[in-house]
């Protein structure tokens, strides 16, 4: 409302004189720019949540330091610093990193940026990312933790996570190998006791058996989890299991945590950006309801509206994303019941599109045979969203769709990296947090492309 009045005042004052009008504007809106929507949220308005274990007041928007701004292959440290400064200034104080992020460079960059601020102004979350055999020994894992402290230039970690439990072909065995057989979980509990870790938790993807087991251990009093990081968004809320039977609906995960009063840290609120790029029909509906809000803000509001959520992580590579997200959370306008219902309805629409649930996290990459897996899936999903899937030959737009699919395919993925070069070695699938059967999906796309190509008319056999 305030903006409307200002604009009206401005128009009225225009007749009176520019000087008077700008003075009026300046008085009313502070640093608002004339005729432009406000990009900048005022500092100090961020919605905060309290971690009942430690009393930490955590900003509801958390910063995922996973895809940091970079120049070529090196991190753009100046930009990281600027963005971290902006974040802290606007109430973002939870920074989530890992020894594995940004090709292993994230912790150092995060450390450099945060070290310029007082230690009590931010919380650091990092992980024990002992995925490779060499770091799964007791010494290897301890060394990884110590390196994290050194890289981050701190002497304690606020939030330490067992990174991505539930993966591997036998998830329980994998968990035991990573944390139990080497005694590292007990070692971490000791570190918490002496104050080098303030909160101990885990992040979960994949096999529900491990998630249930760890919560059972808490019920039995064996281990205490101060927080748990899970994937939560309006698509996964009820459809995760339908999308991939090996995954679990977010509603179940959230309820299990809430039952035990374990604060939930949310990852993938945007599904790797897929919920910022929804089908055109959905965009129109969203814009009709809240014309000034971005598409992404709906997904953030969905995640943040859940009371037991401590913070919602977003991997913000660009300043614009950071500014926009800070605005969404300063303060967060919780979803109304009607809005929530709406999101769960469109989730069904999005589910019915049968996207390949790839979030382009790149964990499967590099494919040893050079396939651009996320690139292929992303093209497929893009065609799916633009309603360009040439699946009905009788359809009058079939030829156009066919051309769009094939031309777009060559544009998105070089020919040597396309699906027909997948050998099916399946080295990728175990790395996929969404548990996609990657070779099977690639083969499906390859068959589609092959059929489209064979359906070339005389004049367009090229594509």
């Amino acid at each position, binding site marked *: 409302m305030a903006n409307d009045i200002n604009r009206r005042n401005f128009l009225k004052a225009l007749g009176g004189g520019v000087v008077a009008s700008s003075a009026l504007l300046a008085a009313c809106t502070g640093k608002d720019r004339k005729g432009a929507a406000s990009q900048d949220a005022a500092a100090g308005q961020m919605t905060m949540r309290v971690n009942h274990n430690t009393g930490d007041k955590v900003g509801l928007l958390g910063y995922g330091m996973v895809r940091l701004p970079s120049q070529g292959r090196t991190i753009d440290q100046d930009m990281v610093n600027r963005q971290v400064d902006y974040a802290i200034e606007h109430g973002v104080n939870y920074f989530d990193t890992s020894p594995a992020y940004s*090709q292993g460079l994230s912790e150092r960059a995060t450390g450099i940026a945060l070290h310029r601020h007082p230690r009590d102004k931010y919380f650091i979350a990092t992980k024990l990312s002992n995925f490779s055999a060499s770091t799964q020994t007791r010494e290897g894992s301890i060394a990884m933790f110590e390196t994290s402290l050194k890289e981050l230039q701190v002497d304690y970690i606020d939030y330490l996570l067992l990174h991505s439990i539930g993966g591997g072909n036998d998830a329980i065995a994998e968990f035991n190998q990573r944390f139990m057989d080497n005694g590292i979980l007990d070692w971490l509990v000791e570190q918490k006791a002496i104050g080098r870790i303030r909160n101990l938790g885990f992040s979960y993807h994949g096999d529900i058996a491990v998630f249930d087991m760890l919560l059972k251990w808490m019920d039995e009093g064996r281990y205490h989890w101060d927080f748990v990081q899970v994937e939560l968004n309006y698509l996964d809320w009820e459809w995760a299991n339908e999308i991939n039977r090996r995954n679990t609906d977010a509603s179940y995960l959230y309820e299990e945590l809430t039952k035990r009063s374990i604060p939930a840290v949310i990852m993938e609120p945007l599904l790797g950006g897929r919920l910022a790029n929804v089908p055109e029909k959905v965009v129109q509906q969203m814009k009709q309801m809240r014309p000034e809000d971005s598409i992404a803000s709906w997904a953030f509001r969905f995640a943040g509206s859940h009371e037991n959520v401590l913070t919602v992580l977003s991997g913000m590579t660009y300043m614009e994303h950071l500014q926009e997200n800070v605005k969404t959370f300063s303060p967060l306008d919780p979803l109304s019941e009607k809005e929530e219902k709406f999101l769960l309805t469109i989730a069904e629409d999005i589910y019915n599109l049968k996207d390949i649930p790839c979030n382009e996290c*790149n964990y499967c990459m*590099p*494919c040893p045979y050079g396939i651009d897996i996320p690139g292929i899936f992303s093209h497929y999903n893009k065609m799916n969203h633009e309603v360009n899937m040439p699946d009905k030959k009788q359809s009058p737009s079939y030829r*156009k769709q066919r051309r769009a699919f094939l031309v777009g395919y*060559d544009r998105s993925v070089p020919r*040597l990296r396309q699906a*027909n070069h997948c050998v099916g070695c399946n080295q990728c699938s175990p790395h996929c947090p969404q548990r996609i059967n990657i070779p099977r999906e690639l083969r499906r796309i390859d068959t589609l492309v092959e059929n489209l190509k064979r359906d070339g008319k005389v004049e367009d056999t090229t594509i």
Partner: protein
Amino acid sequence: MLKKTRITIAAAVMTLITLLFLDFTGTIRCWAGWTAKIQFLPALLALNIVVVAALIVLTLIFGRIYCSVVCPLGIMQDLISSLRKKKNRFSFSPEKKWLRYAVLAVFVLALILGVHALVALLAPYSSYGRIAQNLLCPVYEAGNNVLAAIAKHYGSYAFYSVDIWIRGIATFAVAVVTFVIIAILAWRNGRTYCNTICPVGTILSFFARFSWMKIRIDADKCRTCGKCSRNCKASCIDFKNMKVDYSRCVVCGNCLENCSFDALHYTRRPAAKPAEAPAETVPATDTGRRNFLVGTALAASSTLLAQEDKKVDGGLAVILDKQPPERTTPLTPPGSISAANLHRRCTACQLCISQCPNGVLRPSTDLMTLMQPFMSYEDGYCRPECNRCSSVCPTGAIQPLSLADKSSTQIGHAVWVGKNCIPLVDRVECGNCARHCPAGAIEMVPMNQADRNSLKYPVLNEARCIGCGACEYVCPARPFSAIYVEGHEVHKTI
């Protein structure tokens, strides 16, 4: 009037035939393919008697208009010559009979003895084809790629970008040298090439001497001012003797336009006997140095392009370029019937190569088959929905072939090279060859017969293989595929 008609028809034919070479989408060939098929030498090689007879009759009636409005190399020379605005720059020179007939004799001999490279070098339409394919195509494709980039920016699928690559360095060099020599000759003396070297020109000149319609000089009106001679790009008007050498006249009509006294006419009245003129030497040109420089510059720029291609992306494994295997018998495209047929008839115009959408066809560097097409599967394979090369070939070297016939034409057979095969080398599952074989000729068989779940390797049924190269192209083994196609000298129907 004659000149205007000539220019209009020539412009239309030239545009169509050039577009035929440039259009990589394969659309234009559907309605302009005939422009290649009415060329004299290709029609002769294709034993297309109707076209050959029609062209001879045409020449017997109108003189060598073929050279002015049908032959793209002739039209190209007129274009280059017309860029020079200097008037009255030509002069009469007597016919170089010994040179013309010597070249023709060599040409006929080469044709009979199968010295194909010489035939290809002298064939005028093919020379133009090589120039269009090697020099114009890259420019056209670059323009297309700019449009494709713009289209991509605006989310349109109207244009798609294509790879620009030199198919064969020898052919490229030949095209450059041919172009430079002919361009210089045309710039200096108009139709020198057509009237001294071109074998087709010489053959047609036999008929043109007796043509019904001719340029004739009206002795009553002529003041022997010499303006006609000075504007005759064929140097065939001997104004002093009021004679025209009809064996060289390409009926361009420039003389008619330039005569101030209405003394020249293109009519059907009988002519006086042409007189023999003493021979003169051909003006020699030093083109070697320039060719060398152009060649070096182009070679250098292509090396730069190759380096730029080898960019590595962060999260993507480097993919080695595939190397062609040493095939005992080269692969010839479906429709060519046999290596011998292709060799005998092909004049190396490169039309099939410019039309191949899969990057399969390229010109040979072997001296015996120089510049003639052969196939290789590093960048793509001979896809089942395409028979473009067979539909455009004007000489019958590659004969028209339906898609159904193509799918049962065996041009070669696949050979498995176990030492490269990744189930054996990397110990991973593969089977990409079997998955992509359109003929179903490959089956994956467990290495350990007792264990059905053990890794599988491909087993070939040569009888079903058509040699399309899908297996070779999609094989992940690099730089040498673990399965490759060996050509057959004579194609079989399966």
